């Protein structure tokens, strides 16, 4: 493999708070190629958003300790100055946020907000920026873009606002797009429209996308590779098919089997994961999932509570779990068989 487009190595993001240090991300590594989509799944507090804020350099440096390596096209981002980051943000990399209404300024027109990024990075005139905004709105499927460009965010519906956000993020043809739960606040029919749009735009421009979500269904729809996060660490990664069809980590298995489906059996209770996600102020020792793991006692010597399992990635596939390969086969094969019917 040549140098990947985006490479994150052993990333650590720690926040110091009054109650102690919150280890929001604790040793995370992944790569992403151009034109590919990486889905990051995890529950609230698993560190998925924090990771991406770190890539964009959006954390307040005063109370955030960043450590590790983030290489975007060979450029180190953790040590980059604010000015260098400003040059990259909106231009080479950009972000779509979950709440489109809160992320748009109510006092400026949609056109002005889309044009602002363009003018900053290209030095275009106001007129050119407006034309560009109209073009972008057309591309994301807003009807009558030449009229709607002068609308304010409150005049747009939820789905249209999200489209406007996407237009804003893509105005400078970024090479990396980070989408943080972009469809969570939307209805399913609109969600489907937005995901189709992202896929189309990716095909057109070859953008690399990091797609953050807690919904495995969305991941199945859009991602090429999947990274499952738990308690600030990656517990499993692989291609979409590998992770969803043949999971190798008890947490992924738990997530998959706790979700009701549209055509699974209905009269059996769901199998939830017991307990609740860990506090990152005082995370569990060893494997962070062990207090909730159904298989922890199978591991000899109580290794799960004392030693952090390593994540060994071979050909992009791996999981961080102490279970032996035989035990894994025994546990996960039954699940795989059940899912393939």
């Amino acid at each position: 493999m040549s140098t990947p487009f985006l490479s994150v190595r052993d990333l650590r993001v720690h926040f110091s708070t009054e109650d102690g240090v919150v280890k929001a991300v604790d040793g995370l590594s992944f790569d992403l190629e151009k034109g590919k989509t990486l889905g990051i799944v995890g529950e609230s507090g698993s560190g998925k958003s924090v990771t991406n804020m770190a890539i964009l350099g959006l954390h307040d440096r005063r109370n955030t300790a960043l450590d590790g390596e983030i290489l975007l096209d060979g450029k180190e981002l953790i040590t980059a100055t604010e000015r260098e980051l400003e040059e990259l943000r909106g231009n080479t990399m950009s972000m779509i946020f979950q709440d489109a209404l809160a992320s748009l300024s109510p006092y400026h027109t949609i056109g002005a907000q889309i044009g602002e990024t363009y003018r900053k990075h290209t030095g275009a005139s106001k007129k050119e920026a407006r034309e560009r905004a109209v073009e972008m709105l057309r591309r994301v499927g807003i009807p009558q873009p030449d009229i709607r460009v002068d609308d304010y965010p409150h005049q747009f519906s939820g789905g249209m606002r999200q489209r406007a956000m996407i237009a804003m993020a893509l105005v400078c043809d970024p090479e990396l797009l980070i989408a943080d739960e972009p469809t969570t606040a939307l209805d399913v029919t609109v969600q489907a429209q937005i995901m189709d749009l992202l896929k189309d735009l990716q095909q057109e421009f070859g953008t690399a996308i990091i797609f953050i979500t807690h919904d495995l269904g969305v991941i199945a729809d859009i991602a090429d590779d999947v990274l499952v996060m738990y308690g600030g660490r990656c517990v499993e990664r692989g291609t979409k098919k590998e992770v969803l069809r043949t999971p190798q980590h008890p947490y992924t298995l738990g997530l998959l089997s706790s979700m009701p489906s549209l055509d699974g059996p209905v009269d059996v209770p769901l199998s939830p994961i017991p307990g609740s996600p860990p506090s990152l102020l005082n995370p569990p020792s060893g494997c962070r999932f062990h207090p909730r793991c159904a298989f922890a006692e199978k591991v000899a010597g109580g290794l799960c509570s004392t030693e952090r399992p390593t994540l060994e990635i071979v050909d992009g596939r791996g999981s961080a779990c102490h279970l032996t390969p035989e035990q894994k086969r025994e546990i996960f094969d039954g699940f795989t068989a059940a899912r393939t019917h």
Partner: protein
Amino acid sequence: MSNTTPLLDVTGLTKHFPVKGGFPIRRTIGAVQAVDGLDFQVSEGESLGLVGESGCGKSTTGRLITRLLEPTGGKISYRGQDITHAGRKDLVPIRSEIQMIFQDPYASLNPRQTVGKIISGPMEINGIQPSGGREKRVRELLEIVGLNPEHYNRFPHEFSGGQRQRIGVARALALEPKLIVADEPVSALDVSIQAQVVNLLQKVQKDLGIAFVFIAHDLAVVRHFSHRVAVMYLGKIVEVADRDDLYGNPRHPYTRALLSAVPEATAEEDAPARERIRLTGDVPSPLNPPSGCRFRTRCWKATEKCATEMPPLVQVEGNKPGHLTACHYPETQETVPAPRAAKDPEAAA
């Protein structure tokens, strides 16, 4: 089921919220037609799922049933008694039988009250003194919902989201209700916690025989929980059927589109390809809903008839009894994607 009086009988239920405007004299200039002529029944011990996108009126319906809102028109009967416009006093005995579980486990619990106080609240208000005392009953309830009875004196902030929702469930159970209206009870919870709460509600429903109106936007959760499901669009029920009929043989175009838009966690390459229906545009404003069939502006089958004639909610040809569809041109079995149709071969006949 139909020969006895249903627990809850709703006919023509309507709620219009007036919109005021104008200067200097403010007048009513329009009405948000949040709910417009709903008919449905809930039998004892049955759970009815109410699904639809945001703004379709499902929460308003829940609040009308519990009489937290005053209906504009129509009729709500609870065990044969008309409660549509019943006053506060008349509602007292009924309120104790119809309880509600709310969406937001953070906003729905008073942060300054202990768990014990919160759960015994309904008993205090209704002056109920269970044998063995209220505290004993609260501890029992905590046990039922899977919390430690020792948590009696704790405050809500000491609990996680899932645990708080359990407290909400315990409070709803305190008066041994006959009907619980659950408004998006799991949508604010993490995926791994959702299943815990769904299982709890299901256990409560089965063990205590409580009827549920389960309001949610997540079709998979509703399928798991409900005996019957009603699909709402812009203040109207477009289709209602037994769970298996609705998911196996959706007849309304909107139901089909909704089902096909749900992303599923299967890597699709070797799964049978699911047909996708992509709706364009957004839900129109309930302030000024389309004439005729309200779905027609987004429907791929709409004709002139749809614009002029409101389709009635009836058992269209090919439906099983109890499966009602409001559409002039209902979908047929042949066009339903194979994997789901296969589950219900009878319906094809």
